[in-house]
């Protein structure tokens, strides 16, 4: 992954995501992220541009997933020995070009990156289930597998970004410390979560 130019690094928000009690209520906006206001609260930042970029990244990734790369991904999934890993690979192959494209346009929305990754991973599983290449035994299995895939994607992206100077180590360290300190412990637990259905995907891909 190419290193970001210094001016982009300077555009980074000065703080890592705020804790939930510090956050202002999110303004409703069109797009997949704003459809679930409490989604990934740790990574929210009050920047419309970043939100728009992230939404565009998701839309473009889905368009790619159901468009030109659909046959390739189907081949991968149908011959897969480890669907969880292969879906992680697919997700990364979809996300990385979007990150590269965003870096050449308005900057990478780092604080939304996990939202984007989660959406792409979830959509990848949706595609696998819809096409019959993956038949999960139940909700828990698919949730566990999605979580593993997302963690794999997160780790790979983290390592990729670790080679550049785009992110500040202090911010990342503070974020981890704040989570570990329990600043996000008031997020709803699994049992309190209501099942959320993914947005309906228009046949033929997302509109441009």
């Amino acid at each position, binding site marked *: 992954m190419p290193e970001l130019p210094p001016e982009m690094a300077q555009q980074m928000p000065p703080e890592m995501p705020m804790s939930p009690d510090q956050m202002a209520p999110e303004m409703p906006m069109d797009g997949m992220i704003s459809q679930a206001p409490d989604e990934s609260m740790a990574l929210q930042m009050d920047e419309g541009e970043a939100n728009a970029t992230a939404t565009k990244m998701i839309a473009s990734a889905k368009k790619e997933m159901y468009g030109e790369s659909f046959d390739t991904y189907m081949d991968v999934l149908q011959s897969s020995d480890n669907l969880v890993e292969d879906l992680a690979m697919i997700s990364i192959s979809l996300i990385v070009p979007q990150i590269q494209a965003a870096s050449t346009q308005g900057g990478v929305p780092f604080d939304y990156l996990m939202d984007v990754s989660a959406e792409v991973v979830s959509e990848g599983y949706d595609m696998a289930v819809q096409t019959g290449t993956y038949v999960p035994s139940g909700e828990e299995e698919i949730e566990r597998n999605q*979580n593993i895939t997302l963690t794999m994607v997160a780790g790979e992206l983290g390592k990729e970004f670790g080679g550049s100077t785009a992110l500040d180590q202090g911010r990342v360290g503070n974020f981890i410390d704040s989570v570990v300190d329990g600043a996000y412990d008031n997020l709803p637990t699994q049992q309190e979560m209501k099942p959320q259905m993914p947005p309906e995907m228009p046949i033929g891909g997302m509109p441009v």
Partner: protein
Amino acid sequence: MAIKKFFKKVTKFVKKIAPVLIVAAAVYFGGAYLMASAGTAGASAGASVTYAAGGVGEAFTKSAGVWKSFLGGLSSGTASQSAVAFAEGSFKASQAGMTLSGQVAAGTSAVNMLSTGVSTGEAVNQGFALADAAFKSGGDVQSSWDILWNGLNDVTAPVGEAVGEVAGQGVEMSVSGGSPAEGLLSSPVTPEQTATLDAQMYDQSQWMADNTMSNAGEVTTGSSVSSTLNDSANSNPWGIISETPPPVTEVASVATPETSSFQSEMMEWIKSNQARELKILEDQLAVTREEIAARASIDKWKLGMTAGGLFLNAFGQYQQANAAEKERKNQFRLSPENRALITEPFTYTP
């Protein structure tokens, strides 16, 4: 489109990833970032860092612990295995109703458990158990993490002492009758115990060496084989042969040496130790196989990412050329001077 025909009815239980799991994955992202930012040399050096329990004011006070949990994956090439352990640990904790910090603790603990050489499933179970116990016994989040750090230090760090600790714990577990997991989690071996075991191992080795030499000597003399070990005056628990030559009897006889109960215990201990070492080797072999599979998978990922990058480059160049061509055409069409040149519609006749 073909996609429409291909799709089945949508199965309605595919759901989005829960926010808490996304945040947990974000912590993993941060850990991987910090790990990669440190570089290979820094990561290797960091492997010897012990957890700072309650070390307020230190850089990476807690994130260092989380950060360290990924070093195992980096050094052994089992990043995929680490991701599975972290995700499963955090998910298991979430299912148990633990808070987000507890989930991260369980995931971190599970990844750390991988360094003990156990399977991924065992690492998840042990990591979750450790975090669950720490967060149930701790009064607040900070004290819970302190308990967890101490527990992880006992089990996994420093890496160089891990083998000795595990070997020693095996003896203690066999005495107490506890399970290996209980021994790992709750029965750390003190330095005094380790020293005692080392001394016993040395003495046993000496005993075996001396007896081997003694037997060899008896065979080479050939003429008579005497029993020396059953001589109460010369025998001792360690089998060390006295310097005084044994009395030669007229009739050669071989008597079975008496072994004390302590020697029997030592023999049993050696046998069990050998069996345990064999088990460790087998486990290591299994881990190595998993590493090879993980590396192959990572290579596949890299290929995919490289292909994605190449595709993007090619696609970007195409887009740029296309945009430039469109712009040129637009300028040509919009320019009044150029428009004046077009007097009649352009037709092409091959």
